[in-house]
């Protein structure tokens, strides 16, 4: 019997598999397909203070190795999430859920974190710092160590749940940003968010996305994600959630060997709605194949 349990910031998960924010909605579409209580947990769609429609369409595109999205954080706003989505979720999901939040100013992050901190269903707050800072020249908080630190400082004050900062990979030195987030009190780090990419349609010679560029996700980013998890593991001592292109139980094991305590699965859910169920079902077989008795002990194995 293999042991798939892991502990993330004091909360035990039945397994380390967590659908990633933006690829699992608020859970109920998947709950129609399978019992989502088999998941470690899931991270819900990035939620902001106010409802957002997001960017103009087309806002998804196919690329070799995965996809691009420029959804632009469409969500119903934090009040609707608390009043409609969470009660609806409660009926089908009995575990603590991960609240993914976004903002366009440190204040927005703080207030969304404060509101969601009051919800019992929420186990962790995962802060997506890849959003543009509207008061800071529009560059993403997560690409600047000082701005990243500022967001963490504000959210830390408000968050009464374990605080996970989700890092952007579009940086020269992800370890520097990771260390700053740790210093400001992050309880864990999620990495990676999408790489910035583009696709061009030769029929029009124009970028496919109305937004020109978009976030690149899927198997093609796995090598970069794995490397970043490996490097950040050396730089901080808080737990890491690894993600980026994870599509199989083997990928989950690799992420954990590189240093992840838990693993998120994003785009794979979109092309195979049963991806997470299948990965979880396959974990014991793959653990046995590679002689892994307990997943918990695998974390960081590549460093030993």
């Amino acid at each position, binding site marked *: 019997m293999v042991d798939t349990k892991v502990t993330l910031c004091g909360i035990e998960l039945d397994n380390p598999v967590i659908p990633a924010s933006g690829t699992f909605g608020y859970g109920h579409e998947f709950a129609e397909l399978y019992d989502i209580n088999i998941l470690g947990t899931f991270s819900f769609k990035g939620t902001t203070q106010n409802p957002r429609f997001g960017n103009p369409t087309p*806002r998804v595109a196919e*690329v070799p190795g995965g996809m691009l*999205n420029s959804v632009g954080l469409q969500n119903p706003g934090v009040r609707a999430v608390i009043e409609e989505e969470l009660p609806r979720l409660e009926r089908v999901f009995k575990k603590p859920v991960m609240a993914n939040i976004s903002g366009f100013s440190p204040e927005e992050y703080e207030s969304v974190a404060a509101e969601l901190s009051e919800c019992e269903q929420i186990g962790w707050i995962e802060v997506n710092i890849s959003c543009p800072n509207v008061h800071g020249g529009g560059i993403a908080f997560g690409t600047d160590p000082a701005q990243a630190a500022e967001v963490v400082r504000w959210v830390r004050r408000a968050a009464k749940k374990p605080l996970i900062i989700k890092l952007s990979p579009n940086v020269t030195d992800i370890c520097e940003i990771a260390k700053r987030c740790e210093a400001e009190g992050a309880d864990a780090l999620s990495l990676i968010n999408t790489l910035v990419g583009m696709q061009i349609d030769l029929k029009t010679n124009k970028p496919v996305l109305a937004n020109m560029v978009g976030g690149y996700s899927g198997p093609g980013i796995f090598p970069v994600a794995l490397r970043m998890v490996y490097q950040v593991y050396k730089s901080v001592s808080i737990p890491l959630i690894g993600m980026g292109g994870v599509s199989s139980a083997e990928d989950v094991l690799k992420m954990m060997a590189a240093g992840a305590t838990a693993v998120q699965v994003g785009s794979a859910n979109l092309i195979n709605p049963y991806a997470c169920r299948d990965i979880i079902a396959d974990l014991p077989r793959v653990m046995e194949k590679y002689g892994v008795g307990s997943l918990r002990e695998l974390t960081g194995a590549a460093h030993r």
Partner: protein
Amino acid sequence: MKQGFYTVIENKQIADSTYLIRLSGDNSETGRPGTFVNIRLEGFYLRRPLSVCDSSSDTLTLIYKVVGEGTEALAATPAGAMLDLLTGLGNGYDTTVLNNNSRPLLVGGGCGSPPLYLLAKTLIRAGVPVVIILGFNRQSEVFFEEEFRALGADVTITTADGSHGRRGFVTDAMGDIKYDYIFACGPEPMLRAVYERSGNIPGQFSFEERMACGFGVCMGCSCRTKYGPRRICRDGPVLAKEEIIW
């Protein structure tokens, strides 16, 4: 929604770069007109959405135009091959708004016509007479004219160059017809022209948008409507005329 494997029974060209594919598999979710399936193709990351053209207890028929690499690969798929499909996607046309006295007009443009076939079949079976206008660019693109007739529909074909049927656009043929409801599917400029030409007459319009998941979780395909954002893949592809914002 269901995920299932389907066997290709036949896959043949029926008009200029237009193919008809018949599949056998679990059709428990393909019976509602206006819904679509999402097909996984070897070597492509995202699935390809195609509308249900016809569905019987054991056969699913799709009609598609080759416009890029994915549809090219689909056209090269031989009989006997297996395809991974998600079925039962989208809301489909709501036919409960009609009754035997209704006089619906169906308008299709190019490879937007396929879903109108199952719609016409469903309406005719329910005793509703169907008048349909199908628009194409030229004769070599025309398909399913006879098939629609065989259902008992009153069919008008328009071609932009006049090489078959009536010369002009679908909207040019709309003036001759008396109707009290409209169903439309086709390229967006056509939909918009039909929307305007049909004035106050109510109806349902089917839209296309680039999709990632096709089942409502990625927010890739959203559009704005008078009642707020809608996901074309789940809240659509069919929108009621009164909610559409152009």
